[in-house]
């Protein structure tokens, strides 16, 4: 069984504006007011199956008017098709769902003229469900203290009209709910626990917030930690390099006690070492325990004897005038002490190693003369290889290159 429920719905503002237009019309000529109603039309089918009824289908057809377009009566005569098309030129055809008319002191029934207009409009907008809203203002009392406005909606089909209920949209249709004043009485213990639901929820929110803050703190701590770690590594690296530099310094002092050229970090323009830049600091490092390989690899028997006699031996460069047969002799000496680990590349001034007690006074810079840069660098590299863990300080390289 199917029920068809059709209704027309307009807002109170639309109805009020229709009445406003009615009052503002030309009172002298007692002319009626007409216009178009844009809006939308929608149909809904609801199937309601209950124990008492089966297949109860309700069709809800709602025509909603969103506004009212007042027509200037001087330009609008009788709804001729051309006239209608001109009136509809400013509106989309599918938006026009009906038209209205306010006529005074008449009953709520449609006239022949209105039927013609209605048919013309239906063809113009191609809407067979076009709605006609009839408003009939009148006086209730003879004194004029009370007035009435009748609102009627008609659907005209085949020269017959049927009334459709008109509902004014308002707040009351939306079923506004009331607030609860008394608390729900429930003696259940578990329900009363639910009374702390909000507290639990708030506590959870607070916990979540504090955890978030805690995580942020941990993240910041980790960032600081890693920065600190990098700083520490950098410091350790620097320290190790400085430590290596210290070890290198001690190694050079041990190996070449009299060779100030090897211990200085600055040379004059002529290539002579600047003693002021020699490191004279006692680093307090025990070579025998820290760099034992230097003593085992570089100290031959003769050197060992010298070591035994004088403690730390100092090595010095042999002056040029003493080194006439030094290359061969030096080579033999080197081979004795270091085997093939040393690379001897030249026979110039700086490569001649003689004990300091033989010619200690030859530290005089004027006796140094020129020296071979390549040989010195090579010798330094040898020293580094003996030290094993040291790196070639860039400063010394810069000095000698």
């Amino acid at each position, binding site marked *: 069984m199917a029920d068809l429920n059709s209704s027309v719905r307009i*807002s*109170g*503002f*639309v*109805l*009020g*504006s229709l*009445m*406003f237009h009615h*009052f*503002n*019309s030309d*009172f002298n000529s007692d002319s009626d007011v007409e216009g178009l109603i*844009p809006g939308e039309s929608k149909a809904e089918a609801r199937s309601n199956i209950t124990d008492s009824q089966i297949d109860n289908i309700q069709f809800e057809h709602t025509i909603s008017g*969103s*506004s009212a*377009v*007042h027509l*200037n009566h001087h330009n609008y005569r009788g709804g001729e098709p051309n006239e209608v098309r001109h009136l509809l030129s*400013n509106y989309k055809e599918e938006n026009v769902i009906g038209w209205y008319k306010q006529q005074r002191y008449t009953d*709520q029934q449609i006239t022949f003229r209105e039927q013609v207009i209605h048919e013309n409009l239906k063809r113009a907008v191609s809407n067979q469900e076009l709605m006609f809203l009839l408003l009939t203002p009148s006086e*209730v*009392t003879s*004194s*004029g*203290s*009370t*007035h*009435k*406005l*009748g*609102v*009627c909606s008609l659907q005209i089909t085949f020269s017959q009209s049927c*009334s*459709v*209920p*008109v*509902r*004014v*949209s*308002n*707040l*009351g*249709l*939306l079923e*506004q*709910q*009331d*607030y*609860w*004043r*008394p*608390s*729900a009485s429930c003696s259940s213990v578990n329900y009363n626990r*639910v*009374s*702390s*639901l*909000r*507290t639990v929820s708030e506590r959870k929110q607070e916990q979540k917030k504090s955890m978030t803050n805690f995580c942020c703190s941990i993240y910041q701590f980790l960032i600081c930690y890693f920065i600190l770690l990098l700083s520490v590594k950098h410091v350790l690296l620097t320290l190790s390099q400085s430590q290596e530099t210290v070890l290198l310094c001690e190694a050079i002092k041990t190996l070449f006690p009299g060779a100030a050229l090897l211990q200085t970090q600055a040379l004059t323009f002529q290539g002579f070492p600047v003693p002021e830049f020699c490191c004279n600091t006692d680093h307090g490092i025990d070579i025998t325990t820290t760099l034992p390989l230097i003593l085992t690899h570089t100290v031959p028997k003769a050197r060992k004897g010298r070591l035994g006699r004088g403690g730390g031996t100092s090595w010095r460069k042999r002056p040029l005038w003493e080194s006439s047969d030094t290359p061969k002799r030096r080579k033999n000496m080197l081979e004795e002490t270091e085997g093939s680990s040393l690379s001897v590349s030249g026979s110039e001034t700086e490569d001649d190693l003689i004990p300091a007690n033989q010619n200690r006074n030859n530290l005089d810079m004027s006796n140094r003369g020129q020296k071979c840069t390549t040989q010195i660098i090579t010798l330094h590299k040898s020293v580094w290889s003996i030290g094993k863990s040291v790196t070639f300080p860039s400063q010394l390289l810069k000095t000698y290159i």
Partner: protein
Amino acid sequence: MAVSAVHLESDAFLVCMNHALSTEKEEVMGLCIGEVDTNRIVHIHSVIILRRSDKRKDRVEISPEQLSSAATEAEISFSYRLADMTGRPMRVVGWYHSHPHITVWPSHVDVRTQAMYQMMDQGFVGLIFSCFIEDKNTKTGRVLYTCFQSVQAQKGSEYERIEIPIHVVPHEAIGKVCLESAVELPRILCQEEQDTYRKIHSLTHLDPITKIHNGSVFTKNLCSQMSAVSGPLLQWLEDRLEQNRQSVIELQLDKERLTQELATM
């Protein structure tokens, strides 16, 4: 002595109707602003919507103290604006309220309330707008409005109503003051809802479930107001603006045409 007639401007009438048609569940109320001339004719130029402290479907009233403060506030805010336009001082000259699903005639409570107001001002008038009346046989709706005052009954101490003729005066456009009154409706409805919710929320004996429910009701009611009142009001204003623009274009075309005709003559 009773007034002879009431002339209600059509834009003020529009505001009253919009307010009365805003809800069919409760009565609404407002004040009328205007003047009384020497012929004892009350001219109503504008209205203001009042905020209700208690919303009921069959009753609305405010105490004389509330009326006095509302009247003072109305006169301060409206009289200057209306006086600038009319050149005459304005004041509160009456009140209106709605009768949703109820007959247009004032109840004995309404008559007594009107009598109380008339004690402060003899020219005070009352308007009633009856809405949402439907004849189920003919499926037609009706909207009625009436104007009245109160007089002492000849027998007894009760009051009875007297009919006052009311005429709606045409007003081509909606005046600025009336337009401002019309758009106050959503704000007042929102304030009413907020006041109700605050009173409820301040109760200490409510359990959390009830508070959560009331919070949801508050949100739902606000959304309903926006859907049923704010939205349609906004749409009506936009449509009216568009129609006015079209009217201006048509009038300009008419003017050009007439000017050309004049030139050819």
